[in-house]
């Protein structure tokens, strides 16, 4: 009997741990299937690295205008303005906008030039959650400037299902 139990118990233990991990695994798969993984600060950082190439952008020169509290995340007005003389020697090359918690960290990239006249771009974006929005401007001399804003969203984008 004792001998039998000693033989049985490891199998029972194995079975339970095996079943447990199987359920755990299923659970993990279900969670992934139900909600697409949100962009995390790490993916935001890696998306920003593609633009910054490891250089930390300095604050200033760029202004990100976005309402601090929005009702509908499906359409959030956003304006990015960069302070630059916009000459052949010193102009804004590009403006990049990122978000923290949408499924994808990129929002848009705008490529400007010395002929822009005023380095200002307005568009409407989607926000899946209350989060931080980051804008980075790249100048013709390679310098990087950034601004960030925290936005509270009451109705998130991308969550509704369609038939």
């Amino acid at each position: 009997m004792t001998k039998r139990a000693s033989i049985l118990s490891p199998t029972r233990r194995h079975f339970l741990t095996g079943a447990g991990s199987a359920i755990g695994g299923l659970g993990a798969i279900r969670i992934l299937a139900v909600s697409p993984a949100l962009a995390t600060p790490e993916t935001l950082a890696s998306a920003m690295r593609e633009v910054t190439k490891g250089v930390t952008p300095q604050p200033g020169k760029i202004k990100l205008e976005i309402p601090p509290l929005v009702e509908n995340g499906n359409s959030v007005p956003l304006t990015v303005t960069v302070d630059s003389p916009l000459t052949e020697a010193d102009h804004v090359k590009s403006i990049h906008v990122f978000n923290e918690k949408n499924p994808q960290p990129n929002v848009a990239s705008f490529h400007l030039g010395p002929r822009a006249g005023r380095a200002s771009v307005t568009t409407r974006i989607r926000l899946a959650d209350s989060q931080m929005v980051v804008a980075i401007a790249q100048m013709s001399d390679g310098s990087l400037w950034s601004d960030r804003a925290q936005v509270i969203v009451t109705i998130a984008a991308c969550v509704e299902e369609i038939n």
Partner: protein
Amino acid sequence: MANAIIKVPKTARRGEVIEIKTLVSHIMETGFRYSTTGTHIPRDIITQLVCRYNGTEIFRADLYPAIAANPFITFFTTATESGTIEFQWTGDNGFSERASAKIDVE
């Protein structure tokens, strides 16, 4: 089906900074949504807007699913010479839309 609305001043003084507004009708399906039956809705977005002033590129925007439906983009340019300003949107599933506006520069 798809149509674009652009707003460019008809006349401008040489060197004047003009505002350009663009709006194009498009669902901008993110590719992150599922229908009630659980089927994945594939991505269908506009990926790029290019603006050319008499053939020279003056503005380009790379768009991602985080852009709201019916992409609305406003930007500025300097009125240098009379001519045409052309807009071209390209996107998933071979989406392509063009628009152009004439401008008189005094």
